């Protein structure tokens, strides 16, 4: 498929990298130049070309800003169980606490329970800045529960940003209520604009009191989604588009979808890999529909990158996820526990905490600039990927054996670019490393040249070296970008001096399974 999708040159080479260096802390005085149509920094470190109004909305939103997701947390409340469409990648009967994927929840909440949970989480996790309603069905197929929850939260916790994720079928009917509820962000899942392709993804929709199937259903859905997207733009509501990459069904078509949503004002495009393991019991899973590999996903994301930012840090989280992305704490906040908690909503405490986070972010941006400065004037054709074990805050601060996922960065002389994350099985259980797990970890990062860790044991270290992945632990607890630049510099020196030979690495598998809640 590489040949078909093609690989466009990065539209944001050194120029965009320069923009990324704008310190996050100095956003207020930033100039705005909205007419370039270039929003590639929206999901990155700095404001870039984003108008200040939009930047203010996204800078602390973990799902919209790649950089913010290291610092801020979000939560979903599962108040909307009903859905108005059927997707072949969704099995709504399945519900397992050990699994992490959209549409899965452990308990459904009433709006009143949801508000109590929001206050409990916001008091315990001061970096929680965003509340989303994302199902497990469609929030707009449950408009009463959804909007009642938003209204109650807006009254009780006015500093929390509200957002909504929908399939878009009912979106045009609810635009005015969305505006009235002060919802700042909406995500629409758009997997196709061509009804012929849509018929392979959606067996039916329920619209205007009637069940539609096949091409008719897909046509109505696509029209309503694009109409809803336009209407959101007219009202100044920021819209992200999610697309599920389904090999041989919509993988090539998503480039068209990207153009269509970009021209209608979508701000960020998130192309996610299909989750289709047979044990989830979805139609695609049972039919043997395969999911994309890491390389296929990256090629498609790169092909779509340009005037619209691509989101690459999505964790495809549960509809009741709580906490930082990739670190689900929902198990701590079951409704039984929340009801027992003594909740005091303290705006001042939250504000003070978030101010400290802002200081930390500013320090990170400075560190990033320092790291980049070293490449001035140096050019090389070499581009490679590295994996990083991190717990957040932009630091290399996770033990190899404890990593539930690795962040993947692309290194070149034009900069350090985040390109995704790879979920893995935790290698170290009860103090012992498990050898089969190591091979699954290696499969997950097999396209990387190095893995950055805070610490690593001797056995996995030697196995990684045997595979051709260099374990790097000398930058423990330092900033990712700065360390990666320094390592890349030494790598280039070693290649130049003939000490090592640069070779291309293979492909990597996307881990479909469980991201077990943080212990």
């Amino acid at each position: 498929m590489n040949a078909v999708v093609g690989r466009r040159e990065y539209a944001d080479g050194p120029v965009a990298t320069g923009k990324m260096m704008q310190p996050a802390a100095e956003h207020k005085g930033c100039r705005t130049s909205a007419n370039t149509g270039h929003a590639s920094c929206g999901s990155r470190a700095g404001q870039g070309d984003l108008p200040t109004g939009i930047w203010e909305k996204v800078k602390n939103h973990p799902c919209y800003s790649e950089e913010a997701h290291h610092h801020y947390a979000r939560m979903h409340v599962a108040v909307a169980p009903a859905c108005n469409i059927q997707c072949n990648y969704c099995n709504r009967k399945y519900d397992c606490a050990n699994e992490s994927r959209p549409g899965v929840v452990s308990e459904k909440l009433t709006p009143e329970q949801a508000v109590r949970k929001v206050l409990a989480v916001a008091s315990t996790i001061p970096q929680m800045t965003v509340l989303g309603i994302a199902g497990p069905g469609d929030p707009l197929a449950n408009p009463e529960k959804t909007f009642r929850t938003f209204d109650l939260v807006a009254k009780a916790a006015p500093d929390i940003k509200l957002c909504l994720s929908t399939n878009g079928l009912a979106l045009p009917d609810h635009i005015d209520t969305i505006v009235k509820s002060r919802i700042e962000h909406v995500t629409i899942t758009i997997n196709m604009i061509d009804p012929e392709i849509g018929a392979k993804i959606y067996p039916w929709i329920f619209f205007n009191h009637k069940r539609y199937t096949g091409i008719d259903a897909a046509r109505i859905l696509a029209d309503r989604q694009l109409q809803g997207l336009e209407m959101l733009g007219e009202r100044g509501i920021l819209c992200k588009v999610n697309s599920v990459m389904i090999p041989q069904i919509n993988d090539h078509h998503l480039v068209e979808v990207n153009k269509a949503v970009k021209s209608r004002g979508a701000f960020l495009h998130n192309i996610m890999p299909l989750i289709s393991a047979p044990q989830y019991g979805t139609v695609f899973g049972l039919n043997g529909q395969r999911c994309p590999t890491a390389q296929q996903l990256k090629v498609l994301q790169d092909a779509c990158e340009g005037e619209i930012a691509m989101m690459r840090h999505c964790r495809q989280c549960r509809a009741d996820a709580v906490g930082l992305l990739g670190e689900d704490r929902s198990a701590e906040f079951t409704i039984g526990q929340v009801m027992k908690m003594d909740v005091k909503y303290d705006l001042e405490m939250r504000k003070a905490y978030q101010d400290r986070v802002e200081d930390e972010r500013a320090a990170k941006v400075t560190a990033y600039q320092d790291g980049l400065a070293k490449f001035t004037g140096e050019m090389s054709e070499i581009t490679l990927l590295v994996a990083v074990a991190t717990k957040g805050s932009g630091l290399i601060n996770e033990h190899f054996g404890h990593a539930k996922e690795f962040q993947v960065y692309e290194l070149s002389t034009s900069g350090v670019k985040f390109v995704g994350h790879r979920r893995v099985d935790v290698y170290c259980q009860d103090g012992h490393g498990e050898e089969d797990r190591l091979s699954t970890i290696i499969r997950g990062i097999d396209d990387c040249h190095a893995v950055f860790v805070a610490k690593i044991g001797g056995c996995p270290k030697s196995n990684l070296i045997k595979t051709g992945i260099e374990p790097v632990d000398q930058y423990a607890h330092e900033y990712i970008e700065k360390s990666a630049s320094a390592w890349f510099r030494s790598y280039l020196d070693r290649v130049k001096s003939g000490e090592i030979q640069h070779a291309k690495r293979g492909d990597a598998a996307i881990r479909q399974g469980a991201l077990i809640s943080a212990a």
Partner: protein
Amino acid sequence: MPFKIIASQCTSCSACEPLCPNVAISEKAGGFVIEPAKCTECIGYFEEPQCVAACPVDGTCVIDTSWPPYQAQA
């Protein structure tokens, strides 16, 4: 004949409840149930029974043959 909901298949998603023109559907013991005396099979309201059309799990809202057919009011 009224419709009934197969309890073992109902995911309690609530999609059907607000759609019933007769307010015959309510939540009970972790699932939804249809009150047979109130069900009109949506005759006179919609082209198709709303609970059947909206239910995401096929074969969950089915005809209850133990009841006589619903007679639409002339």
